[in-house]
């Protein structure tokens, strides 16, 4: 009895003060978008569907950054470090273990675990050393750049872990895709419809799970730390522990993106941890509105699609457009464009109601 009531009260946290989307209107919209996403493979070429999983792969990292930066107030430039660590770990593990018996799934869990452990060690020194603000950004950026440099010089044959060659700047390839053991034979998740649905399901679970997290007591505290760390500490919270936990969860989500990306393309390179790669997640979440999970998702998808089509259509200026977008966001809508639009809409509606 108690269990079911506790479960119900946890589920109620899916809505709360830390998430903008609320009420029947929002959930109807959410249901429609989800239905659209589920229906999409029926109307599209399966090759395109598989390709477009690419966009989903990044959303975990974006939501992780929303948690660390948007909710927790700590600007981490290091999401790509955990992306890379998990991606390479997945490669090394699966090349050595193979794809039978669900070992790719075990590798996924281990690879995300390794990135989380790395985040825990780095985060311990950052937060228990009371490093904050711009210094946190500098240290995390340095870490990802060091990793990029390190992996870029692993070209020689001596740089191998078991059967897995790290391959330096050219990157590591030929790792198996995620494979689900099944009764009638294994299901290999090539970039195809099955992978699309698995990634979509994972996305929904992570999104709803994070909504519950940010509206929980834990979420209250991390938002309080963003608003006023000294006050939060002087209410009796050991803020270092909360900051560390937030950092580990958010970084592990970047690790999940890294594994999904590596499995999707059977490929990972040091460039995924470089300067350009490290700065893009900042743009994604800042443009939509980092302080909310939903606006982060919308913004990230929109920016990714724009960026992708600019690159495909031969524009060499895609990165410059991204930079300009960030500058415009910071100047015009510092909370994020989607959040600014929602605020504008709400204000207009309340003015209409007031006038009526």
């Amino acid at each position, binding site marked *: 009895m108690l269990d079911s009531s506790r479960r119900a009260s946890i589920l109620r946290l899916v809505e709360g003060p830390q998430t903008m989307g609320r009420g029947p209107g929002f959930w109807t919209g959410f249901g429609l978008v989800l239905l659209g996403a589920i229906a999409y493979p029926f109307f599209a070429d399966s090759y395109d569907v598989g390709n477009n999983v690419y966009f989903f792969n990044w959303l975990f990292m974006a939501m992780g950054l929303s948690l660390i930066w948007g909710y927790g107030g700590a600007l981490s430039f290091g999401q790509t470090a955990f992306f890379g660590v998990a991606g390479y770990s997945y490669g090394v593990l699966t090349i050595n273990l193979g794809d039978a018996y669900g070992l790719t799934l075990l590798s996924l869990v281990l690879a995300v675990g390794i990135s989380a452990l790395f985040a825990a060690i780095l985060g311990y020194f950052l937060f228990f050393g009371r490093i904050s603000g711009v210094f946190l950004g500098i240290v995390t950026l340095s870490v990802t750049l060091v990793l990029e440099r390190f992996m870029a010089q692993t070209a020689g044959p001596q740089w191998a872990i078991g059967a897995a060659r790290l391959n330096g700047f050219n990157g590591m390839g030929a790792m198996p895709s995620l494979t689900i053991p099944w009764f009638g034979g294994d299901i290999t998740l090539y970039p195809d419809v099955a992978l699309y649905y698995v990634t979509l399901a994972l996305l929904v679970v992570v999104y709803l799970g994070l909504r519950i997290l940010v509206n929980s007591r834990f979420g*209250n505290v991390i938002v309080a730390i963003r608003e006023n760390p000294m006050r939060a500490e002087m209410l009796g919270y*050991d803020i270092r522990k909360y900051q560390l936990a937030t950092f580990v969860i958010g970084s592990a989500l970047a690790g999940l993106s890294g594994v999904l990306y590596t499995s999707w393309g059977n490929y990972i390179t040091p460039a995924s941890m470089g300067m350009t790669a490290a700065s893009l997640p900042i743009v994604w979440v800042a443009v939509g509105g980092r302080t909310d999970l939903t606006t982060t998702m919308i913004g990230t998808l929109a920016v990714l699609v724009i960026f992708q089509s600019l690159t495909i259509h031969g524009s060499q200026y895609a990165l410059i457009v991204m930079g300009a977008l960030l500058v415009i966001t910071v100047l015009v809508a510092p909370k994020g464009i989607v959040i600014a639009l929602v605020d504008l809409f709400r204000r207009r509606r309340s003015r209409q109601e007031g006038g009526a």
Partner: protein
Amino acid sequence: MAILETRQLNKRFGGLHVTGNVDFALQPGEMHCLIGPNGAGKSTFFKLILGEHLSDSGQILYDGADITRAKPFERIRRGISVKFQVPGIFRELSTRQNLTIALQHHVSPQVLSEEIDRLLEFLKLADDRDKQAGNLSHGQKQWLEIGMAVALKPQLLLLDEPTAGMTPDETYATGAMLQDLNRAGMTVLAVEHDMAFVRQIAHQVTVLHLGKIFAQGTIDEIVADERVAAIYLGESDA
């Protein structure tokens, strides 16, 4: 036994001796005000008690336990609470959320809502429960923070200029609020400039000057002390 005691407490910033051999004792149930001209070391003394700064030498005892090296949150968990000079609230969050965060670690979810309503009533913020805390008036922000500090049900409440920027009416109401809390058993130590407020609430007054305890007594004794007038009250009368 004193609830809070400092023994030979010292703090230097470079060549500046901001807290010099301070022996201070606060009795349970007391309302005590700390006064002194600017730069007397009042804020530093507070920060030493809270653990925001660590002392160079000396001891701080709380309820008989040595807390000289304890982390700030550990001191809070022992029963100290604080209201900062600049309202330390969570500006982007609603009034309600601000109080929720203060209450949630020691109040069960079943009664959290009632407890919040009671505090909102006490703080005269019931109509502004859903307002963003950053949009409250200055006096309301001060009250909200006092409410957050009080929500912890502390034995000892530290207040750093609780009435700064308040109108005389608000100041008086704040004093009355604190007297209510004191009657319920809370010990209060406040840094304050407003002498009317000090007269309203203080059982005991300590004057700090150049980092040292300069005088101690009731407000009437302090006001009658010509040495104090010379360093402090004289300034504001002039």
